């Protein structure tokens, strides 16, 4: 599973403007729209927020992975946003979130989605990976970090 097959520079926001969870999810959704893979923006956001109501996807270590399967996307979509100030995501560890990976999948692509999440989860356990994601200075640099750690 190559994460860089799905996360591209144009889907990365280096400095989120949003001040809260829902606004961040909306902001990240907007970067996916030009790809044409989100066919119903409002429905996509609705599914992501419904999942958040089951429990926060702020998993600790200043990371959140809001996600949901929904018919409103084609295939697997991934956006990344970085909040330098940190957002209240009601994270499990109570800390603010800086790194947000937004994922959506068509239910037909569940297998790929699960593999993506499992691979991302393993990378995010690595402190150095998280620190390099925090300090990368451009979307292209982020993708290089991802490539480097995929190969390690």
């Amino acid at each position, binding site marked *: 599973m190559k994460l860089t097959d799905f996360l591209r520079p144009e889907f990365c926001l280096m400095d989120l403007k949003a001040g809260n969870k829902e606004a961040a999810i909306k902001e990240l959704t907007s970067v996916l729209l030009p790809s044409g893979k989100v066919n119903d923006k409002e429905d996509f956001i609705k599914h992501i927020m419904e999942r958040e109501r089951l429990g926060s996807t702020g998993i600790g270590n200043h990371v959140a992975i809001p996600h949901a399967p929904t018919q409103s996307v084609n295939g697997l979509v991934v956006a990344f946003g970085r909040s330098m100030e940190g957002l209240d995501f009601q994270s499990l560890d109570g800390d603010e979130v800086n790194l947000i990976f937004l994922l959506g999948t068509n239910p037909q692509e569940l297998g790929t989605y*699960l593999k993506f999440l499992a691979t991302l989860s393993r990378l995010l356990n690595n402190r150095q990976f998280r620190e390099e994601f925090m300090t990368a200075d451009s979307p292209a640099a982020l993708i290089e970090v991802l490539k480097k750690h995929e190969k*390690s």
Partner: protein
Amino acid sequence: MIKNVLVSVSGSPNSLMATKYAICLARVMQTKLFVVYVIDSKVLNELLKSRIFVEAEARAYERDLEQQGKVFLERIKKMADSRAVACETFLLRGSVSEEVINKINEVNADMLVMGEMKELTSRSAAFYDEGERIFRKSPCSVVMVKNHAMVENLYKELV
């Protein structure tokens, strides 16, 4: 003499092509075909443990994967029937590689057919890739299906 062919499927286009090739092989060699679809509960549990999933969510995915597996296996059963190949299907859950290897041993498969695997990015990716594990740990010979156009033609000509 080869008596039992087993194909491991995931529902992907590659595994569908592997199935078509396995049906061709089973028909030509007059063997029985075993088809295995594994619900990857290992990865679901891993995502639960890392707190990316909540319990209700993981169980919902498991049900969805089970439904997709049933539909896919029914489709394969019809495909095998249409080519006069004796076929038995298994819907399992657990670690994909472990379940496939166990089933190979259980049914005494002489040959495993798999879809083409994606290029691996690293040694750690190889460690986590279930297809790679099956390929390396299989107790029987493995056929990896690559030329999709050729397989489609073979399958069509098998009527």
